């Protein structure tokens, strides 16, 4: 039975993806192309080329962190829409530590930069969660506002306060270079030895391993520890958790801080892992993609990994489709959106079905003989 329930739960995302493909097929047909051919190009381009595979992993790295950050707040029924702003602040804090401190060994400088990133995210998360806990201000509103502030502040800091003097006279608006000791090491040496080479292999860095490790550790913490138990109780029924003597607000506070700390790490894939400086055109919107990923993963840390890989795959596939099949990559963006919409519906249906199944099992209630059963009105 347990295996069957697990299969049912896994079926929801598969169905949603299938539905997303179906709708996209209709769109592709509408513009006069063959969907099978397009999907074929997409799969071949994404999965049979070394550069594509490494590009997917590189693109998935920040998505894993973004999805995990959002998921952690969702786990205590808080809607951290501010992952985006927290990620800006974390990215800046890491860059700042990276370009101001000099002469530290990598063993100290890099951890310092990572801590700074988390602290930057947490600082930005602190305002909404304190307002929520002390004054009941809704975190959706406050985090959105904090996003705007972060966006404006970071442009000011990059463009006016910490602009790299070496770039004066050029149109490039960016911070000075981060010290080599604060850069996240590339995984290329390992893969080169295995025979993989190329610029996309070069980009892939150790932040991916940090993201994967965080997912695994947090999955374990939530499932097996006392803290995880309290988190689940607070989420499942705050009233009962309170009556049981659990300090709900403390649990909510720390889960939100955890969310914000992870959010702070999102930008490091590009800043400490690839560019080595914070550019005014650094990637934006990753925090919002995190919401979709958390939703697809059902806030499960291990599911976040799969969902982020799927998004990385679709993103890469969209490029291939645009280039080789001459289909606008927006088609794939539409597919992503349909998958998200479908997943919400599919999960709801699955949950209802599973609840019904469980009700029958739990007390060993004999099932009514199916032939006599007429459809419910």
């Amino acid at each position, binding site marked *: 039975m347990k295996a069957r329930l697990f299969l049912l739960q896994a079926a929801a995302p598969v169905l949603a993806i299938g539905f997303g493909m179906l709708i996209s097929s209709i769109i592709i047909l509408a513009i006069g192309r063959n969907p099978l051919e397009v999907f074929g190009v997409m799969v071949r381009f994404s999965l049979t080329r070394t550069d594509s595979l490494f590009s997917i992993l590189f693109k998935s790295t920040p998505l894993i962190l973004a999805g995990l950050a959002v998921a952690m707040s969702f786990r205590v029924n808080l809607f951290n829409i501010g992952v985006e702003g927290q990620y800006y602040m974390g990215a800046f804090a890491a860059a700042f530590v990276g370009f101001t401190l000099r002469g530290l060994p990598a063993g100290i400088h890099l951890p310092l930069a990572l801590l700074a990133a988390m602290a930057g995210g947490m600082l930005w998360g602190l305002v909404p969660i304190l307002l929520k806990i002390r004054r009941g201000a809704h975190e959706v509103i406050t985090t959105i506002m904090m996003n705007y502030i972060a966006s404006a502040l970071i442009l000011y800091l990059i463009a006016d306060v910490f602009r790299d003097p070496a770039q004066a006279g050029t149109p490039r608006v960016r911070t000075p270079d981060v010290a080599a000791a604060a850069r996240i090491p590339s995984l290329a040496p390992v893969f080169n030895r295995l025979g993989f080479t190329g610029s996309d292999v070069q980009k892939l860095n150790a932040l991916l391993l940090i993201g994967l490790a965080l997912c695994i550790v947090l999955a374990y913490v939530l499932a097996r520890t006392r803290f995880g*138990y309290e988190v689940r109780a607070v989420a499942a*029924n705050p009233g009962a958790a309170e*009556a049981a*003597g659990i300090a709900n607000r403390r649990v909510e506070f720390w889960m939100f801080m955890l969310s914000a700390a992870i959010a702070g790490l999102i930008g490091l894939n590009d800043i400490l892992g690839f560019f080595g400086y914070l550019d005014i055109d650094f990637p934006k919107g990753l925090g919002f993609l995190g919401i979709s990923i958390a939703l697809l993963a059902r806030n499960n840390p291990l599911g976040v990994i799969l969902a982020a890989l799927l998004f990385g795959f679709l993103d890469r596939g969209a490029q291939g489709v645009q280039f080789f099949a001459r289909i606008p990559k927006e088609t794939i963006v539409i597919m992503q959106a349909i998958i998200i919409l479908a997943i919400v519906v599919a999960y709801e249906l699955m949950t209802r079905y599973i609840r*019904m199944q469980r009700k029958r099992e*739990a*007390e060993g209630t004999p099932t009514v003989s199916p032939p006599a059963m007429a459809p419910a009105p």
Partner: protein
Amino acid sequence: MDGEAFIELHGITKHFPGVTANDQVDLTVRTGEIHAIVGENGAGKSTLMRILYGLYQPDAGTITVKGRPATIDGPRAALAHGIGMVHQHFMLIPVFTVAENVILGNEPTTGIGRLRLREAEAEIAELCRRHGFALDPAAKVEALSVGEQQRVEIIKVLYRGAELLILDEPTAVLVPQEVDELFANLRRLKEQGKTIIFISHKLDEVLEISDRITVLRRGRVVGTVEAAATTKPQLAEMMVGRPVLLELAHPPVSRGEARLEARAVTVATGVGRRRHPVRHVSLSVHAGEIYGIAGVEGNGQTELVEALVGLRPIVTGQLLIEGRDVTQQSARAIRLMGVAHIPEDRHRRGLALPMAVWENMILGHHYRDDFVNGLLVDRPAVDRFVAQRVRDYDIRVADTDAPALALSGGNQQKVIVAREFSFAPRVLVAAQPTRGLDIGATEFVQRQLLAARAGGMAVLLVSAWLEEVLSLADRIGVMYGGELVAEFERGQVSAAELGLYMTGTKRGAGVPA
């Protein structure tokens, strides 16, 4: 009384996924009789009535109204056949008058759409006079007592021309005096030729008011009996399927030291904390006694209980547990001093329904050293504990990994009771511990409370069910309007007398100043 059949049901069967709510139900209700339908929770009473009122369609079976086959596909169709339902939960708009509520959904208007409120009021006044209902059509509903509001609901159904009234657990919300008034109204309606279906699980009331009684068990009709020819134990046995002990032994236990003391406790809520749902309540619960709190719900019991277990701040006054001042302590600190709590709403405060049964079984004990191994939950230790509890409390669960929402209400309450009785509590605060439970589960929980008392525990029992307080408590306090208005020793007060205090008619007997 031996009128013709108003309604005949034949072979009514209704399936829901996983259960057969009604299985080949035959029922005949005669014109002009009061026909009670009794059965435990889940016996299929509500489903059957919903079929009769057109809210559900039966999967099989026929309905005959006054000798003619009928299809009832909605409340409108039911009313067209003269069938009306008085719901357990009132559906009234507080700021409207009685008349405005009665005509709602059926408003009489003039040609240009003007509401004929005056005419409606006159008509309603005439209805009340004819049926002996004391009710002012122009009164605002929010100013009415619960009993009066129920009368509005009944008038609503009569106004729509119902000949047969279905009353779903009508006495659940009433104090004894209001029950007497309701019964007087029902008898008058019967004299006027109306037919009444009365749904209840309170056997005393059923025996008092009805002419015939149909007993349902697990969706089937066990039998239909003349009320005059049956007894309470017989009915109980028909309902449960085995003999039931209706009276629990209440042997004397020597009263020990005070374990839980409230001294002039006041609780504040609302904007600016200006509302005081509990005012200056003083009481003490001793080792080896059950202190019962009676009262109509909403008179501060909920807030008092939450204050006593640390879930609500006490603004003035003191709370002492075993002599120690815990007024400012957290819920966890009070728990750790040995105060167990059976919350009044098991779904809101008692269980985390989506979580596994085993997880719910340790909720509130989960931080004990017994259950943690470093930072981790010690599954083997928890599993041993849970298995033991499941055995001792006869909790019917196939798999303790299943979520708590999969259990029946009785089994859910058993999980809470088993959990709260663990680790030798010194004080037990039990709020509505048998609410919504069937006879078997009720008996089980009440036995546990008496066993706890015999074992020297101090038990505070809050219950809206007066008979429960009267049969279990050593002392009884009555709450009205947030205050403890009276206190009695066991045996010194009758249900009727308590009813007067519960409605605020009388106050101030034996209350510590």
